[in-house]
């Protein structure tokens, strides 16, 4: 077990690190067993098909091996993980009705404030359960559904049954099987045909319980010609035991629809973040992934776009910032499965103080996907010689009519550029921050405003106190 540190060396995590005393109303024992899975299902009063799904997933989990590639996950001991922790508040649509400490947690993170100003709806999960969900009246009156998965399972059972874990079956990999067995929480969004959701919806996932796992499931369906921007944020206070996050995100983007899915992940550094996300896009539809990975000890995250319909598009914009002790393995996968589909990937990573950032991607062009266009750009910046950066792009092109471009750059922060800025009176740490901010600028401008500000703050804090 690692030792508890009194000082977190770089990013100021003071807001994220405020932990509440654990007051779970119900939690299962550590470890993973049929009994535990049945207990979760019973606690949730689920239909029997869901319990069967969970038990099937558990069987698959037991058969599947650990991933044979990527970061070493040997420190993960499922016997030590509590897979379900319920705060027992029930779900509210009014922040005032939440217990004071939970309300305060989300206040500090600025969620209710953002809800008032710039969001069409908000969901907030605390440990394993969603404690708050609300969508603005003008959205619900247009038929937009935004609720937690338990409610969705009761009220929209048919839709759920037709979509749940269809893109991400339990057989996808070991952690998806685990997810299938113990999933809890998450959001369900349905945007009817032709409806454009004017302001984003945001779900925030907060893990407070030490040694717990969070396995939320997000399922979004954007019907023909509809438009949605969905934002997902996550954080947790730091503990001296491992926490595990293995969420699942399934996105269905129909003909001519557009979905932007933005994620800012700021887990504490005792988190293993093994998340899976997939989108399937119909004719002329578009999926836009915006992904910021800052926290966690280990992350493995590769959102996948399946461009199933003719002319479907995918854009991936990602930034990864690996500091001391972090091994962040991120990227994307795109499957071009129809003619005239196109994809763009822009990825930037920064590593410092011994952090390791790996970019891993796969562009697959099926034989039938003629006239495909794909452009991949990945750039890495290492801030010191202790840090590492790797780029592992895979291209699997199965026809002659694909236009594929790839550009990769790995570099260190330029001493000459720092000197140049310093000759203009700018201090060393500010000079470095300017260069790093400039490097990530193409990404920051894609982030939701509050997160762009947050990221600039992170970059500045990262360098304060690093001089002299």
């Amino acid at each position, binding site marked *: 077990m690692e030792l508890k540190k009194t000082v977190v060396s770089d990013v100021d995590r003071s807001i994220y690190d405020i932990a509440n005393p654990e007051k779970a109303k119900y939690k299962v024992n550590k470890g993973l067993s049929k009994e535990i899975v049945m207990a979760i299902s019973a606690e949730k009063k689920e239909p029997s098909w869901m319990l069967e799904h969970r038990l099937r997933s558990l069987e698959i989990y037991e058969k599947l091996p650990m991933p044979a590639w990527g970061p070493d996950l040997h420190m993960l001991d499922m016997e030590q993980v509590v897979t379900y922790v319920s705060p027992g508040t029930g779900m509210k649509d009014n922040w005032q009705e939440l217990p004071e400490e939970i309300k305060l947690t989300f206040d500090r993170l600025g969620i209710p404030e953002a809800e008032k100003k710039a969001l069409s709806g908000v969901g907030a999960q605390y440990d394993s359960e969603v404690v708050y969900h609300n969508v603005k009246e003008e959205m619900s009156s247009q038929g937009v559904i935004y609720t937690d998965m338990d409610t969705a399972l009761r009220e929209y059972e048919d839709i759920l049954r037709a979509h749940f874990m269809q893109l991400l079956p339990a057989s996808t990999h070991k952690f998806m099987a685990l997810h299938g067995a113990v999933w809890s929480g998450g959001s369900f969004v349905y945007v009817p045909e032709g409806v454009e959701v004017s302001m984003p919806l945001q779900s925030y996932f907060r893990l407070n319980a030490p040694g717990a796992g969070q396995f939320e499931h997000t399922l979004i369906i954007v019907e023909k010609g509809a438009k949605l921007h969905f934002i997902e944020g996550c954080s947790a206070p730091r503990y001296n035991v491992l926490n595990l996050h293995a969420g699942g995100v399934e996105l269905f983007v129909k003909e001519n629809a557009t979905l932007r899915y933005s994620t800012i992940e700021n887990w504490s550094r005792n988190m293993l973040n093994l998340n899976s996300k997939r989108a399937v896009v119909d004719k002329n539809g578009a999926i836009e992934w915006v992904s910021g990975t800052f926290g966690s000890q280990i992350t493995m995250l590769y959102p996948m776009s399946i461009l199933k319909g003719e002319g479907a598009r995918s854009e991936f914009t990602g930034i990864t910032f690996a500091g001391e002790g972090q091994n962040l393995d991120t990227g994307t996968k795109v499957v071009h499965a129809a003619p005239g589909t196109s994809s763009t990937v822009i990825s930037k990573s920064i590593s410092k103080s011994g952090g390791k950032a790996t970019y891993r991607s796969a562009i697959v062009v099926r034989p039938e996907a003629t006239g495909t266009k794909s452009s991949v750009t990945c750039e890495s910046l290492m801030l010191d010689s202790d840090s590492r950066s790797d780029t592992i792009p895979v291209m699997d092109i199965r026809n002659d009519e694909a236009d594929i471009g790839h550009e990769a750059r790995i570099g260190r922060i330029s001493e000459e550029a720092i000197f140049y800025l310093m000759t203009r009176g700018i*201090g060393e740490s500010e000079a470095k921050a300017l260069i790093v901010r*400039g490097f990530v600028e193409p990404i920051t401008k894609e982030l939701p405003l509050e997160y762009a500000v947050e990221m600039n703050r992170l970059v500045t804090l990262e360098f304060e106190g690093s001089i002299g």
Partner: protein
Amino acid sequence: MKELLKIKGLKAKVGEGEILKGLDLTIHPGETHVIMGPNGAGKSTLASVILGHPAYEVTEGNIVFEGEDITEAKTDERAKKGIFLTFQSPEEVDGITVENFLRTAKSAVTGEAIKAWGFHQELMALMEKLNFESGYASRYLNVGFSGGEKKKNEILQMLTLNPKLAILDETDSGLDVDAVKTVSEGIRNFKNDNNALLIITHSAKLLENLKTDYVHILVEGRIIKTSDASLIDEVGRVGFTAMLPEDLRGGV
């Protein structure tokens, strides 16, 4: 008169190679100094060392600015005291616009918050004087600029930060005739009785319209000759080698 810059017995090396081998130089306010010398003599090194480039190590001697020893000072502290350097090939820095960069720099140098709108107008006026198309203010610092545009941007920075001592390193290289004229006008506008120029150059083009007080010949890390502006013509006529003392001639 009080000295602005006084360099005494300066020796500096990069790695194991000694480049400056005991250099003396004194500059007073109001003066314009020119340093000429063959390639590799240490001219650009001198400029970098005056600004405290971390790649160079000062092994002997010192640099005093306005009576204060700055030999060990950090680069940004030297800039705040009023020393400025134009670069031969300025770095390209992505993601920060010329205008934001200059406002940040001005605020750093003056220690005061700079109001955005007033600064913008000031900047536009300066750019017009330099025939520098105003659109460059909102482009990223030097990214994709031509050689000439980069040099104009250096002069723009000098005029904006208004230093006490401006060191111009090969500012005229790579410029066409018109651009040299514009840059040279910019330098003339900058110059007054209270500030000083240290111009490093290969050629006399840039100096035609400037009043030069002293010309130094720098060879092999030492100033071997100092005189008035007439020395510029002499260099043009006889070259550097002829000026060397006997014992150094073989080495150039």
